[in-house]
Structures are given as structure tokens and as C-alpha cells.
């Protein structure tokens, strides 16, 4: 019984996204000029090559955020069924959180969050 719901949701998702894109493409006026492709830098042209190796700290911040974002994504369905399953679900989630907490502690100690 559950499989039809997944298909319906999948279809609804695809239709909505594709429809919105197609409709806006159909209606919106399009104009192009030399400056439109330029990267926007508060009204000026960029200085020097923009393809340069900058600090890796940005990437580490993004990854840490992503990990905890996905974690919350897992928490939500858990919270829905948490009441019926009872104690087992609680222990599972604690293990899950501790593992992620360990990951954060490791990154913190190794200095991923330090900016200088």
C-alpha cells in the first residue's frame, strides 16, 4: 500500500518543479547584454584572476554545517514515530547524536573552526 504514495509524491514533485521552471521561462521577457554574464561585485569589475586558491576553512565550515543539517533531517521523521517505538528509539538517537558530537569534537580540536 505504501508504494503508491511514494510514486504520487515523486510525480507531484517533478511536475511542480518542471512546471514552475517552464512557465516562468515561457512568460518572462529575456534580454542579454555584455555585462549580464559578468560576476556581480558591487558594481565593479573583478580585480585579477578570480580562480584562486583561498582558505580551506570555508570548505570545512560548509561540511560541518552539512553534517548537522542532515542530522536534523533524520531527527524529524524520528520525532514523528518516537512515541510508538518507545525506549529503543531513544537509545538509538542518543548513539547517533554522540557519534556526530564526536565528529565535531575532533574537528574542533584539530582546529578546523579556528580562523587565524
Amino acid at each position, binding site marked *: 500500500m505504501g508504494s503508491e504514495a511514494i510514486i504520487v509524491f515523486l510525480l507531484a514533485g517533478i511536475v511542480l518543479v518542471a512546471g514552475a521552471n517552464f512557465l516562468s521561462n515561457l512568460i*518572462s*521577457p*529575456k534580454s542579454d547584454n*555584455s*555585462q549580464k554574464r559578468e560576476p556581480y561585485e558591487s558594481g565593479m569589475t573583478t580585480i585579477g584572476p578570480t580562480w584562486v586558491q583561498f582558505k580551506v576553512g570555508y570548505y570545512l565550515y560548509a561540511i560541518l554545517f552539512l553534517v548537522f543539517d542532515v542530522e536534523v533531517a533524520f531527527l524529524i521523521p524520528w520525532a514523528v514515530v518516537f512515541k510508538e517505538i518507545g525506549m529503543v528509539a531513544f537509545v538509538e538517537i542518543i548513539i547517533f547524536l554522540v557519534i556526530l558530537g564526536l565528529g565535531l569534537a575532533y574537528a574542533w580540536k584539530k582546529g578546523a573552526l579556528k580562523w587565524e
Partner: protein
Amino acid sequence: MGVNNTSEIPADFPGKVIPGGNGANILVTSLDDIINWGRANSLWSLYFGTSCCAIEMMQTGAARHDYSRFGFEVARPSPRQADLIIIAGTIVNKMAPVLRRLYDQMAEPKYVIAMGACAISGGPFFYNSYSVVKGADHVIPVDVYVPGCPPRPEALLEGMLMLQAKIKTESMKNKVFPIDGFDEGL
């Protein structure tokens, strides 16, 4: 309000009225109305205050005069997400190419309000000034001019409502981009 866009025919109209087009535009006009209604009531302005008029624009954005009652809810810093430039202040020779680049980088459909005497014609800096561009329409095509130095918040609101009325008269088929032919001086 300025532009009268109601389409009913006045009573004392001499002669017969011939509906335009082959009837297909019944759908298009109604689609136009919906699109124009959507566009007119959700114009996002760009952060572009150069001098004193910017303070009056900020006062219009604050609680008392509040232009978000008319759909100008958000002022966006980047031209990619803005539909409307309110040129609040003087445009100087060094700033003109920047303004032109911001206008070009904005997504269609885009509108321009020239707020204040400086943006309309150079204002108090018209005479004896070697660095002021005498009016923003030397740089980009302007839709609505709001006079005043600085114009009162109510005047700016009136200008915005006029722009909304102007948008409501547009039609998708014969949409003319104001920038075409602007450089050649048409």
C-alpha cells in the same frame, strides 16, 4: 491615478467599436492582467542610495510611511534579485558606468525610478559643476521621475504607485525593452 487603464468604452464614444485581434487575445489579455498584477505588486527595489534622497527613501521604508504596504516589501542589495532601481541621489561621472553595469546586470523585467532633482536633471549641482551627470537618463532609461530635493516620502510613494499603474498597462506580446536603441539615442 494618472494613467487610466480601465478598458470600458466611454458612453459618448462616436462610431462602432471593433475588438482588436482575432479573439485569441482574450486569453492573452487576461494572462497579461494576471502577470502584470503579479509584477506590479511585488517590485523589489535595489539598495542604491547615493546621497540625501537615500535618507528620504529609508524614511519611506521605515514604519511611518512604509512602502511595503504596496508590495515593495524587500530592498535587495544585489541586482540579480531586484526588479526596480530607485536612483536616490546624484549621479556623478565616476558613478555612471557603475550604474549602467548594475542596470545591465538586473534581470528582466526591470524598472527605474529617478528620485530627486539630482537624478532628474542634476538638481542644485547643474551649474558650475564639472563632475555631475546632468540627469540619470543620460545613463539608463527612466520610467518614473519623482521631483523634489529631497522629495517627501509621500511623493516617492506616489511615484511608486504611478510605476505600478504603468506596469499594469503593459502587454506581453508587444513588450518593448526601453534599453533597445537607448545608446543610439532613439
